[in-house]
């Protein structure tokens, strides 16, 4: 753990005593990303795509270069498969509105993993309500494992789409997406992968995974808020109707209707967020410079350290089991007799930022039989001291709530 990556992130200089363990909610931003977005506004800001002057060409280049960077980052075949959205939530809604409302009918089935984040569940609930399709859930065991057998058993000839996260934001467990994609495709089922928690932390290659759609957010991967990505296979995106309607996404408009622009512009209505895309580009460059080897090594080591310490503390239960290798930077836990909100408040009083609640996964919490939990989540910029401080506070929680005095 030699390297002090925190030095790249101005927020840690601003709050040197803060221990930030809520990166699964949103990541901090390196100076390089903050500077790149600012530089765009100083040196290249214009409305891109239709511009006929120098500055607009710069803006267009900045935007399309960012798209190409995203394409390379996730190994897509073509930049036409990369749609910029606001966040993973919008990406998933785009699929449900555009693909879903045009392809799904009563009698069809949607399969959703029960541990999904609300953003990969509510759009499907709403789609099912509107189209009359049936919504089914794939169940996991208490440590968050989905098996191939369970998936095979849940798929029917009517299952049109299966939605699952690559890494659960509660368990931190990686699902075998490539295997699931193969099984789905054998069944004629599309697979939507929620990469919100995986793309920032492990190398993701959409062609190797062979997923039909991948959604993720910039803000969880060191980029600014307000920019996200939808990857979709070109043949699918081409057939899908537009989602939002407006400027920039058309070829030709009359009083009666419109002819839509080519991919990916068909899905990017209105003035695009060039500043956000430039920030995401800088974040990708930054991640590549650090390297996933280093990122994975550090996050795995810190996770293992945390889990090993936590499982020795009496009255602490780790959700999803005690195996350090099953948690990828995300450790959700409970403390006997102490409500998670109180746990988070005690951590806060020690300047440690963790999260408490249902983590936007209420049906999962109902499934595992608790109404809320506490969660610490890591990024590579965390270090051993952060985990030590976390463990030290965790040891005091019950005492400070009046137990065992």
């Amino acid at each position, binding site marked *: 753990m030699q390297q002090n990556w925190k030095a790249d992130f101005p927020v840690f200089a601003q709050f040197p005593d803060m221990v930030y363990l809520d990166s699964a909610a949103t990541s901090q931003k390196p100076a390089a990303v903050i500077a790149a977005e600012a530089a765009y506004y100083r040196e290249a800001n214009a409305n891109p795509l239709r511009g006929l002057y120098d500055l607009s060409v710069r803006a267009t280049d900045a935007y399309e270069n960012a798209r190409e960077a995203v394409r390379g980052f996730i190994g897509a075949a073509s930049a036409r498969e990369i749609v910029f959205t606001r966040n993973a939530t919008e990406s998933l809604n785009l699929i449900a509105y555009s693909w879903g409302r045009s392809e799904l009918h009563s009698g069809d089935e949607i399969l959703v993993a029960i541990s999904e984040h609300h953003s990969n569940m509510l759009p499907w609930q709403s789609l099912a309500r509107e189209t009359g399709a049936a919504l089914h859930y794939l169940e996991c065991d208490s440590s968050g494992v989905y098996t191939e057998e369970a998936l095979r058993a849940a798929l029917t000839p009517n299952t049109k789409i299966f939605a699952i996260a690559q890494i659960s934001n509660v368990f931190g467990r990686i699902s075998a997406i490539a295997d699931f994609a193969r099984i789905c495709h054998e069944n004629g089922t599309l697979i939507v992968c929620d990469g919100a928690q995986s793309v920032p932390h492990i190398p993701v290659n959409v062609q190797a995974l062979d997923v039909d759609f991948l959604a993720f957010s910039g803000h969880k991967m060191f980029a600014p808020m307000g920019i996200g990505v939808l990857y979709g296979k070109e043949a699918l995106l081409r057939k899908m109707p537009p989602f939002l309607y407006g400027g920039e996404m058309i070829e030709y408009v009359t009083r009666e209707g419109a002819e839509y622009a080519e991919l990916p512009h068909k899905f990017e209505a209105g003035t695009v967020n060039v500043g956000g895309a430039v920030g995401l580009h800088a974040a990708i460059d930054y991640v590549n410079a650090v390297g996933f080897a280093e990122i994975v090594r550090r996050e795995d080591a810190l996770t293992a350290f945390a889990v090993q310490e936590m499982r020795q503390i009496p009255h602490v239960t780790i959700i999803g089991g005690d195996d350090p290798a099953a948690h990828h930077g995300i450790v959700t836990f409970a403390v006997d007799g*102490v*409500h*998670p*909100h*109180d746990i988070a*408040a*005690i951590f*806060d*009083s*020690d300047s440690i930022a963790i999260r408490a*609640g*249902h983590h936007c996964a*209420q049906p999962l*919490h109902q499934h595992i039989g608790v*109404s*809320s939990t506490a969660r610490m989540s890591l990024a590579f910029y965390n270090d051993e001291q952060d985990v030590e401080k976390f463990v030290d506070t965790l040891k005091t929680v019950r005492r*400070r*709530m*009046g*137990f065992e005095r």
Partner: protein
Amino acid sequence: MSDNFYDEVLIDHNLHPQHLHDLPGATCSHAGMNPSCGDEITLHLEMRGGIIADGSFTGIGCAISQASADIMLDLIIGRTPEEARKLAALFRKMIGGEITPEELEILEEAGALQNIARMPARVKCATLGWRTLEHLLETAD
């Protein structure tokens, strides 16, 4: 939030609540909830001769919501509905940061929750019992 936010008052009311029990003689009950955190409190009151003769609560929640409900019952038992409503209004005023020192006195131990406004996410916990009370008094009228 300073370490002593969870002070003796709150911790004591949370660990050893006086009023966390059923109330066989209850004349009215109402369940209040904070859907987003799953907390739920059912408030039971026994109205007799125009005053709140007895009261209790059941349900689960964080230390803030439990302690707040327990402290509230300490305050309102023996009072008229009118007086209880006034206390509820004062409590809201305190959470809103607009209370005078004299008014704070009236709230007795509930004053331990004065700083909850610093944690907007917890305000709903602190007010759960009081909101349930207001609803109960309104519908019981």
